Structure formats: C-alpha cells, structure tokens
C-alpha cells in the first residue's frame, strides 16, 4: 500500500499512480524546477487536465499542478457520502450576497482530475445560439468562437469520453451518434419521460460520461448510484482516468498536492509559479503559465498574484477578473408516487429534457434551462427536506423513510452575467497563508422569473405522472462559470478566444471562468471542448512562432 494520497504526494520519483490498478504505477517524466518548461498548468480538471494532454501530445514540455490528491478510485473510494467529502474543495471560503452560494460538495473539487472526479457526468452541448446570445437573443455576451467550430471540438471530447447517449438527439443541429449507447432508464428517469410525453415535449436519455460497455481497463457502469461521491468502478470518464493517463504517456508531469499561491511576472510576462508542496514553498520556471482553477480559484490566484507591475492582479486591466460569476440554477420539484422508485440506483440523471433551452416563446425572461431526473443520496436528501421543507424531528425521519417512493426533477438553468456577482479576496488567510476568496452572489429578476417558470413546469410534469404531495425546492445552485470571460475586446474581457490573456501574452486561462455566458447545460463538456481548441490553437501559434 502507498502512503495516504491526502498527505503525501504520489506523483514523484518518476512515476504516477496507475488509476486502473490498485497499488499500480505508471512511469512519468519529470522536469527539474530550474528548467523553464514550456507550460506550467495550474489545475488538472476539465480545463487544465484536458489542455495538459493536448499540449503534451503537441510536443510541449508540460507540468500540471493540482492542489488535491492523486486518487486511485478502485482502492481509494468508499461507498460513502461522508467519507468521500475528501473529493471536495473544503478549504474555507466566505459566501455573501442575497443568495449566498453553497460551495464544497455542491460545486468544487480538490483532486487530480478536479471536479470531474465527482461530477454527475451529464455531458451536453450548448445550443448553437447560446454562443451568440447578445446578437441573436438580445442578452448576455457573445462568445468569440462560433458554434460550428465548437461542434467539432464537442465531437472530439465526446469520442474521448465515450459518452453514452441516445442514437438520435432530439434538439439542435444534427450531430453524430454518441460513441456508446445510452444506459437503461431507471424508474426516476421513466417518470421524467412519462411527464414529458404527457406534456407533449421531447425528452431523451441523458448523454452521460459513464461507460455503457467496457473500455480498455475500465469497467462499465454498475449502477451503484454513488456517482457524485466518486466512481469506484472507473466507469465514470473523469479527467483523472481519461485525459491524464494520456497526458502522462505523452510526457506531461502531474504534481499532486501542489497548491499554487502566486504567478510570478517580470517585464510584463509570466515567469513561473510559486507553489506549496511537501511543506515548503517552491518555484517552477515556465515559458507559459496556464491558470485552470475553475471560477473561484482562478480569479483568486490572479488577484493573489498582484505585484508592482500589476497592482490590481494579473490580467485585470479590464477590471473584470472575478466578476460575472455565474452559478447555474438547480431548483427542483419533488413528489411522492405509489411505485417503488428507489432512485438511489443508477446515475442520478438518466433522462433529460432540453426543451426549454431550444424554445424561446412563452418565456418572460432571458436564457434557457434543461431539467433532469434525480437520485439524491440520503444525506443530500435529508438536507433538501430539512432545508427546503423545514422538516425536523419525527416529521423528517418519517419523510426520509418514504424516500423510495420520492421522485423529482431538477433544472440546470442559465444565470445572466452580472458584475455584481463576483469573487474578491477576504482578509482571512488559509492553511497556506493565502487570502481566501469571498464569493458574492444574488439572483436577480431574470433568474427569479426563470426559476418560477421552471419549477412550475417540472411540477406539472410530476403531476401528469400522478405524483402527489408535491413540493418545490427553491434554493439550490450548481456549477460555477464566468470570472475571467473571453471576448474580442480587451476592455470587456480578460482573455481572447484562444484563452490567452490580453494583458500578459504568456498567461492563459483555461477553465469554466472564461465562459461569457453559461447556457442551460452542465458546463464540463464545453470546458473540455474549449481546452481542446486552445491546445490546437497553441500548437498552431507555436508553429508560426507566435507564442
């Protein structure tokens, strides 16, 4: 057995954990700190991990750091909600605003592979118009990338993750068949399907990043239902078990338990990163620095890196670093049915309707939303009931004991970019001595109108399937985006379409923070598609000597 991955770095001495084999190792190239590597990447999640693979395969020397541990899911993950808290970013963060966000297990990962180690695997493409909401739909901001180009990168990511999805997808422009077939519906998903059919709208099997057939050394999904607490089957196609093994094989180095505290600059260029590992602060030289810490840690690092050259933080001449934080709406409708649903079985969201991402009429708000079937584990469900219905005492226990007959639908809804929703630095510091983030968030009228429409609609869907004792869970959010948006104009964006910062030509940002808008779909597929595009663009620019 190896030492505890939470307390001792695993990727060292020329090897990294083999995620497919208990106790196994794979050889890993390592780079001396004094060598100026081509790229140091901060974060190994959907953005950073994917980009590490693409850049290493393009022949660059790459060191990718993650603050979290390097797990081997087969031997390190227990079937337990509480224990698996170890996957989440639980370092202190202050939340405020009218709708203070719940962080931690809700949206933040701290592990090699990032939040994809515990994500719900829902892998959706943006609606094409949602890349140009300002021009086409009159709200938000346009992406500087066209949807046709993104469509190609979606193809690449879906193939890489062997997404299991329907043979024909009901919405949007034609897309190729998903690489793997859809999973069977569980009872909770059937309730979504029946409700949608009763209301006369389309539904489909959710395209999902868990295997419906074997793949290499990875087992297919066993429908154990603990997806959001980490997949001990390796069926989940997280960055940890897909992009990163490929990156290592291509010569990238992963440094686990490596918390980057500051990006160093000199003469207007980034020179490397200061990082904390094995109890001490160290420095890695690099020709390019990529920040990929997701929508909280990315602005936090840029702001914490303020120096004499860049007193307001790096890449922040627009003043937009940390602003336009967009959490997605995650409200739900629930009810009770005669059937034994037992929604603890299978991935939580096996059926989906994107109807309201593609239908604009009948809305008194901007933006889109999708909704999915649900399968909350006991602690999450208890918190929903206690928080959403104010149940406690015997009332709570009795309601919990009816859980096998509970059925619900949950939205993933778009929030509009708003500069007042933002990440700043608090005065308090963390265990590394770094100032912790303060996260300010509030729903505005647009979000409130969308929530009302969505929960009413989901409630109708449940009613149409015969669910009784229905109730609405009004206060939940998921996913984080924005805070370092991409655009065509240096005064209104932080990075350009290539994820390159306007201010510092060798500083890049590649994660959900670059999203100008979030659409009504889970972001991980889009983050990976952007990372693939960024990798290709960097390779092209390097070939032309434009780095």
């Amino acid at each position, binding site marked *: 057995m190896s030492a505890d991955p939470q307390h001792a770095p695993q990727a060292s001495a020329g090897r990294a954990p083999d995620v497919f084999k208990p106790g196994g190792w794979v050889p890993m190239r390592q780079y001396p700190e004094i060598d100026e590597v081509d790229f140091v990447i901060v974060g190994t999640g959907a953005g950073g991990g994917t980009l590490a693979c693409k850049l290493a395969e393009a022949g660059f020397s790459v060191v990718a750091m993650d603050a979290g541990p390097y797990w081997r899911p087969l031997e390190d993950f227990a079937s337990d909600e509480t224990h698996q808290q170890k996957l989440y970013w639980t370092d202190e963060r202050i939340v405020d605003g009218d709708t203070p966000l719940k962080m931690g297990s809700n949206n933040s990962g701290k592990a090699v592979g990032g939040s994809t180690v515990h994500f719900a695997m829902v892998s959706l493409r943006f609606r094409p118009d949602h890349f140009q909401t300002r021009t086409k739909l009159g709200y938000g901001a346009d992406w500087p990338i066209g949807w046709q180009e993104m469509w190609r990168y979606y193809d690449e990511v879906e193939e890489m993750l062997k997404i299991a999805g329907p043979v024909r997808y009901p919405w949007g422009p034609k897309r190729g068949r998903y690489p*793997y077939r859809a999973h069977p519906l569980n009872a909770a998903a059937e309730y979504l399907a029946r409700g949608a059919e009763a209301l006369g709208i389309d539904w489909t099997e959710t395209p999902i990043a868990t295997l419906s057939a074997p793949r290499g050394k990875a087992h297919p999904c*066993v429908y154990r239902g603990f997806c959001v607490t980490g997949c001990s089957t390796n069926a989940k196609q997280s960055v940890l078990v897909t992009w990163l093994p490929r990156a290592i094989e291509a010569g990238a180095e992963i440094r686990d338990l490596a918390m980057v505290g500051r990006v160093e600059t000199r003469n207007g260029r980034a020179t490397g990163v200061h990082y904390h590992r094995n109890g001490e602060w160290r420095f890695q030289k690099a020709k390019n620095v990529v920040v990929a810490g997701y929508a909280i840690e990315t602005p936090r690092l840029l702001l914490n890196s303020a120096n004499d050259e860049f007193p307001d933080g790096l890449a922040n001449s627009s003043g937009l670093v940390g602003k336009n934080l967009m959490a997605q709406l995650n409200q739900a409708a629930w009810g009770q049915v005669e059937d034994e649903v037992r929604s603890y079985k299978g991935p939580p969201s096996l059926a989906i309707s994107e109807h309201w991402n593609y239908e604009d009429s009948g809305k008194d708000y901007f933006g889109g939303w999708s909704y999915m079937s649900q399968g909350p584990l006991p602690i999450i469900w208890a918190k929903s009931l206690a928080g959403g219905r104010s149940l406690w005492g015997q009332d709570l226990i009795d309601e919990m004991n009816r859980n096998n007959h509970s059925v619900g639908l949950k939205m993933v809804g778009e929030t509009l970019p708003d500069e007042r929703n933002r990440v700043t630095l608090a005065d308090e510091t963390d265990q590394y001595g770094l100032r912790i983030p303060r996260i300010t968030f509030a729903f505005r009228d647009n979000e409130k109108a969308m929530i009302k429409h969505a929960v009413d609609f989901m409630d109708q869907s449940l009613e149409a399937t015969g669910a009784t004792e229905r109730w609405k869970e009004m206060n939940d959010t998921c996913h984080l985006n924005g805070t370092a948006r991409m655009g065509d104009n240096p005064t209104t964006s932080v990075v350009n379409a290539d994820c390159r910062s306007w201010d510092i030509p060798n500083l890049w940002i590649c994660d959900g923070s670059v999203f100008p808008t979030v659409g009504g779909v889970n972001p991980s597929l889009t983050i990976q598609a952007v990372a693939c595009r960024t990798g290709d663009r960097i390779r092209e620019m390097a070939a032309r000597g434009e780095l």
Partner: protein
Amino acid sequence: MAQASQADGTVAIRLIAGGATTLASSVLADSGLEHYRGSFANKAMVLPLASSAFGIAVNGRRAQQPESRGTAAPTVSHVGSTAIGLIGLGFHAYNVLKRPGGPSFTNLFYGAPAGAPAALVLAGALGKAADTLAQGKDRIGPVELASGRAIGAMVGVGLFGSVGEAALLHFRGAYHDPFMWLPVTLPPIAAVSLLRDVIDDHPRQATMILLGTTAALGLIGMGFHAYGVARNMGGWKNWRQNILAGPPLPAPPAFTGLAIAGFGALLMMRQRRRHG
C-alpha cells in the same frame, strides 16, 4: 444403398432434433436468467422455462433414438413451444412498446427481446419436423419435409433472426470489441449460402463448412461472453450481478443449434439428390 439412405435419414433426424435440443437449452438458460431478472413479475414468465425444458427432454430423446415412435408427448411439447413462443413474442413486443419512447433503440436494447421467444418457436417447429420424419411421414400439412428444403429455409431464416438479435445487442455494446463483429458477419454468409442451396436444391460443400464455422462460433461466443462477464466490476466473484449485467452466456449457442439443424437439412437434400 437403401441401407445407407436409411442411415443418412436417421442421422438427419438426429441432427434436426439435436439442433432443436440445443436451441431449447439456449432458451431455457436465457429465459431463466432474463425472467429471473424480471422477477417473474408475470406468472406466465415461467411458461417458456417449462416448455423449453420439456422440449429438451423430448428432442433430446429423439436425437438419441431417432426411431422411437413415442407418445403424444412430443406433439404436445412442440405445439406448446411454438404457441408459447408466439405468445411470448406478443408479450415482449408489448413490454417494449409500453415503455416511454415506444419502439426506440433504448427500449429495444433493454426491453424484452424478440430473439428468445422466436428461438422457442423455432425449437418447436424443428422438433415437430424431426418427429414427423421419424414417423416416416414426409410432410406437415402443406409443407413438404422430405427434401430437406423447408427445414433448410427455416434454419436460414432463423439464422438471420439470430444475427439481427446479435447485431442489435452488439450495437448496444457499441462493438467495443472487434470480435463482436463476428456473429454479424459470418452467420449471415452461412445463411445466404444455405438459402441458395435450398433455392437451387443443390447442397454445397461450402455451406457445410460455413455451418460448421457458425456452430463453432456459437460455442466460442459463449467463451467470449464469459470473458465479458469477467470484465464487469467484481468479475465472476460478483456473479449475481454480472451474470445479468454482462453479455448473456446462453445467447450464442442459439447459432450452434440452428447450424446443427442446418446440417440435418443439407444431409437430407444431399441424400435425395443421391437417391433421387
């Protein structure tokens, strides 16, 4: 020569009955597993188990003792298998169609399959044919049996049915292993070759070889499926889940059963050509 003919005829009956036995075995194991998965929610779900078990006994006896005259039991078994298979087809279609989405790929993948009850129908029909021939009769109603062509046609169509089932379910598995292409490429060639022989009334050596390969494929396929079960989480130690979650062990031998019966048909065709 008459004796040789007699012997050939006996071998053909043995093969046809043997094919029916193998098919019925495949149905018994498959419906046993799948209806156990379905928790025998409908009491009628025991019927294919009973009728395929009965079919194994009757056809197995016929394969061992081709001349036995027998009682009414064989007829009851064969008619029962055919009827239960046909009713099963109806039930299975209903099971697929009542699911949300109706006749969608997902429902065809995960709903009740058409292949299993169809195999039961075939087992009944082949058994009845073997019986009829053993009793020295050469036709069932309007269907002429003695030439072997009708039985050959039935086997050819049956093979296409099995190929369809394998194609659907291997598509469900996204053909993740290149060997999954075998049962959708080789048996169709055997079936085409057999049907050509039937139409031309001319048994060819190539068909014999193709049917032999198809028969072997059914057994090899079972091996592949056993490996597939082992590739699921927990492997064979977790057999209670994986025997149901993994690829179905009893499915591939349906090819073997059909190919064996196909041999019988070819033998009859050859015998008649030889002896006029």
